[in-house]
């Protein structure tokens, strides 16, 4: 994929990632995932499948959860991006620690970022977060280790809901 994406000539792109704005010259179809990990050295965002199927690469783009492996950088010029390195995610990170929501950890950044986007959506829609809602929100985030229960418990702890 990278080979494909790196052959066209570079374009100028501006991204604000976790509050820091960077101006980059990158091939237009370079994946947001590679820009984050390689150009900006933010390796918290993980690559699982590279095909939109696992959710490990989830980041928040202008308030929406998107898959960084499926987003070409030319389509997010000027965007505000938040990754797992964002300090806003600390309450979720602590909840994952407290509940044992992470084992190998590959899925964890995506889980945490997706959970953040979902909790923000619940808040702006004025609906109370529920376990079923969390399960649905995390449907595109796969985990091979935990069996999901502890992940859901972590998210609900961060939401302040007793499970």
């Amino acid at each position, binding site marked *: 994929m990278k080979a494909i994406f790196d052959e*066209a000539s570079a374009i100028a792109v501006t991204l604000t990632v976790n509050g820091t704005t960077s101006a980059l010259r990158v091939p237009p179809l370079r994946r947001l995932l590679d820009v984050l990990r390689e150009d900006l050295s933010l390796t918290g965002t993980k690559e699982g499948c590279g095909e*939109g199927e696992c959710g490990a690469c989830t980041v928040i783009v202008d308030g929406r959860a998107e898959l960084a492996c499926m987003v070409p950088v030319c*389509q997010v010029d000027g965007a505000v991006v938040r990754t797992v390195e964002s300090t806003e995610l600390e309450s979720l990170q602590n909840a994952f620690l407290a509940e044992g929501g992470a084992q190998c950890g590959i899925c964890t950044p995506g889980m945490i970022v997706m959970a953040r986007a*979902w909790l923000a959506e619940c808040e702006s829609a004025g609906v109370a977060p529920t376990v079923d809602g969390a399960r649905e929100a995390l449907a595109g985030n796969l985990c091979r280790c935990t069996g999901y229960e502890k992940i859901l418990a972590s998210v609900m702890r961060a939401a302040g809901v007793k499970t």
Partner: protein
Amino acid sequence: MKAFILSNPKSVKDALQLLAVARDSKQAKAIQPLAGGQDLLTEMKEHLAEPDRLVNLKGIAELDYLRNLDGKVQIGALATLARMEKNNLLNEHARVLFEAAHSIASPQIRSVGTIGGNLNQRPRCLYYRLEEANCLKKGGKECFAYSGMNRYNAILGGGPSYIVHPSDLAPALIALDATVFIAGRTGPREMPLESYYKLPSVGDVRTETVREPDELLLSVSFQLPAPGTRSTYLKFKERESYDFALASVALVLGFDGDVIRHARLVLGGVAPVPWRVRAAEAALVGQKADTQTAEKAAELALAGAVPLSGNAFKIPLTKSLIVRAIRSLA
């Protein structure tokens, strides 16, 4: 993969001008529109699509809308699936489309994927997606699914290719009698969405729609169903979290009291095109949505089914989905 050019038109007019080159070019596929990229990027990665020019539609603001004009719902090609699954108008008056949008992929893909990309996405047949397999659909001589792994392939309308159309929006929109508006070098044209799709036995087996390479899908529209209309999209997935439809049913029923006055029944996941079954629709009109009527409609809908070696299970599966869908609207 060869180097390619990316264009970022800001208007439909400019995009069409860029695409107009496509009709002259020897390789019509050399130029392709890019919307959310949630299908196209995977296709490029697997070398299934090798455009040397991409026309990025995302900057065309005039294609991004979902509006209600005096009871006519108009959806621009760039409206995302997330926008549709969060829309109150669809929730209240066009449940079939609301539920279909919500059933697609994962929240992350729904926040980027567009209606235009969804309706024009390419097949999911295992052999089509396998770079090494040069089957009929990719210009080869043989349909490998016909004699190979065909659990996910067609039971209706198949041959010489046996793909199923993967879009969940298409059956729902056809059940709403939606019209599609497309434009290209020879001007704009409008047609029922049903006629936008074509069987593999018609024309070029490599394409799924009547769209010419220089044409863009601009919008889809439908009349809000009359009061007394209920609708639903029932999708059976092999994996509960998210998946393409093993079989699905888009159903719109208009009632007068408890008697059905209007019926649209369109199947997904079972045929190379969204499969509308008029015989079943006719059998529903004038009846109550009871089990007996539902079972008769299901029998009629699957009457012509010819399963491949590995997918006969889809016949009873689809029948029971149809019965359940009809009963749920009673």
